[in-house]
């Protein structure tokens, strides 16, 4: 395609700064507001004027006509290529605007704009459509699982299965986003499903009222179409269920996200287990075992009178659960629309230190001689 017939738009989410260099040229710095990424190029001054007119409506030829001068076409091509490659601009002569309905366009417009920057290789609206076609299974509808589901459905996921066996209790008012006093005593799956359908009535919510145990049949819980399974069930023990899920999902090439935010890890990020991208569930579990081999803590439990609640035990606020859920949802949505968007978060789990405002990280690594990882 001839360069002059191309229609280019500098993304709304990109700021462009002009920094003077000399009489003929200047440096253009591009800055993505959403992700705070930046880079710059040096160009002849007339190109700045051209760039200011790239609104996605006029072709480059028409823009030049407006400017009233001509430029070197090879140089123009190089600059356009730079803009497209770095995701500062999109080429609007590709047919992308018809891929989602006008209603969805209205609902998700700000997020679509964000996706423009998150995944630079395609328009944000395509990413939105990809997300809408994904299938998610959530195991555990507690404080963190419920909030992840809320983020996903608000963000445009329309197919989700909810697995849990517990009922809503009064104490869930402390952390469950979907808690309402009139849901106390109802099954968590059903209360959460009602909440999600109120957000988006077009969302297909499948309910499975079951407790996941070491001998559960996963074929009944996880449909083959699933793109990701989120484990946020911390009973009987999150580690055991994660290993079971990990070994089941790995050969099937279904991603697993192990959510954070449980008891002693109230503000942890969670981690991905994806065949071809990360160590397997066994390796992740062994990473923790090796890291903690010299650390054998003793806890002295005190129980509140006539209850199984630990006094002075695991604490947690709604805001802490929201942190874990939000980082999780951010990673999951990014992964679902493009696995490269989360590459830096694939191999580690973080914990936010609430009194320091800092993260600490543990790197997850493949353990030597692992049988599961070798399955590709």
């Amino acid at each position, binding site marked *: 395609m001839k360069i002059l017939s191309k229609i280019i738009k500098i993304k709304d989410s990109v700021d462009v700064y002009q920094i003077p260099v000399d009489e003929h040229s200047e440096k253009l710095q591009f800055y993505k507001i959403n992700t705070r990424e930046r880079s710059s190029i040096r160009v002849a001054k007339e190109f700045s004027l051209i760039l200011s007119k790239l*609104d996605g409506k006029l072709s480059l030829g028409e823009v030049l006509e407006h400017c009233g001068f001509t430029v070197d076409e090879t140089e123009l091509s190089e600059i356009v290529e730079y803009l497209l490659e770095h995701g500062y601009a999109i080429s609007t002569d590709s047919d992308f605007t018809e891929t989602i309905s006008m209603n969805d366009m209205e609902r998700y*417009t700000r997020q679509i704009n964000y996706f423009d920057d998150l995944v630079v290789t395609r328009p944000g609206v395509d990413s939105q459509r990809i997300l809408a076609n994904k299938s998610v299974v959530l195991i555990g509808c507690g404080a963190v699982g419920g909030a992840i589901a809320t983020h996903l459905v608000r963000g445009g996921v329309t197919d989700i299965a909810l697995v849990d066996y517990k009922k809503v209790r009064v104490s869930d008012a402390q952390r469950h986003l979907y808690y309402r006093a009139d849901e106390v005593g109802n099954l968590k799956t059903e209360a959460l499903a009602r909440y999600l359908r109120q957000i988006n009535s077009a969302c297909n919510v499948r309910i499975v009222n079951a407790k996941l145990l070491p001998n559960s049949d996963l074929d009944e819980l996880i449909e083959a179409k699933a793109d990701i399974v989120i484990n946020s069930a911390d009973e009987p023990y999150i580690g055991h269920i994660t290993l079971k899920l990990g070994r089941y999902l790995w050969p099937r090439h279904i991603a697993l996200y192990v959510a954070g935010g449980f008891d002693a890890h109230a503000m942890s990020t969670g981690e991905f287990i994806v065949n071809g991208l990360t160590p397997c569930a066994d390796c992740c579990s062994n990473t923790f075992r090796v890291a903690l081999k010299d650390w054998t803590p003793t806890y002295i439990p005190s129980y509140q009178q006539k209850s199984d609640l630990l006094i002075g035990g695991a604490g947690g*606020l709604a805001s802490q659960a929201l942190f874990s859920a939000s980082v999780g949802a951010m990673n999951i949505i990014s992964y679902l629309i493009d696995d490269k968007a989360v590459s830096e978060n694939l191999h580690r789990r973080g914990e936010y230190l609430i009194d320091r405002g800092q993260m600490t990280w543990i790197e997850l690594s493949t353990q030597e001689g692992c049988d599961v990882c070798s399955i590709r």
Partner: protein
Amino acid sequence: MFAVLDRLYRLRSSVALVESPGKLEMFRTNVRESLRIKLQYENIIGLLAKFDGKTLARVILGGEGIDFVDGEELITFLVENHILIEVDCSYLPEVFGEKYRIINLIEDYVFSTAGVIEALEKLSTSPVLIVGLGAVGTWVATNLAQSGVATFILVDDDIVDISNLHRQDGFFQDDVGAKKVDVIERRLQEILKCNVIKICDRLDEGFFVRHGLDFCLAINCADYPSVDHTTELIGEYCMQKKIPHLIGGGYNLHLSLIGQSVLPGQSACVRCFRRALEKINQADLEGVKKLNRLNRKIGSFGPVCAVSASLTSSEAFKILIGAFSRLATLNRRVEFRIRTADFAFTEIEKNDNCEWCGSSGKYVC
């Protein structure tokens, strides 16, 4: 003389103890902080386990043959570091049953069980002003209601739009067109009975005069016409009245920003921040022009807004229970890195020449 000896102490269940010869590590799992001490005492864990909240310290120390002066010093140290907590009252079973997670976390911030009850009381009686019910304010309101805040002043003049639903908490499809303050009031009431004062108005120069409000903490989550403008208005009013305030992040153009906490007279005020940031930006922007472009729409992403809101809510919680020394965003501008899920800081000092809080400033304490 030995006041400590005639009191009750409890070793907290969430503390992980790791003993090695001559050393003891105490890891507080709730806040992920570790304390290591050197100490020659055989079976120190066995000793700590005796602090069950029912046995007087005098009896425990006497039984172990520990010198009372040394024992008192050790107990005081462990209480100051939230390993032991003084049991000067017990929790009502129904209150503990409903709020055990909040109570167990508060135990990491106070020194006695009466301190916990007092903190719960402060949470439920302190009016909190939240200005702006958008991508940050809605999450903050819910977080705080779930953490025991029971009096809210909510300010927003807008109605729910379908484009709010992807990133703002509490709004459903059927709420489109309703007043935001009404919808959020209903949402908070559905969680717990609380007292909500609704103000369907916009924050401007005359706002505080028009409404004559009484509150203990202000949280700015409004970015119209710009966050700098709303921050200036809230900051100045709160400096006059010496009320702690928080600047939310996560708004237009600053999606990944976590705003600062301000304790008037003790920390950098919003004017200190503005001056310091102007200086930093000036160095960056010398001779630089922004390329002028028309018809721009700015992106936003719910989970990132909620990360920002969650940290703001956690800071608000600490302010409300009086844990000022544990604030993470005092004198700091924090930025959340979306690609790495990590944080970066710019430290901003309280400026002695500040026209608001400096030594000859307008609002000196």
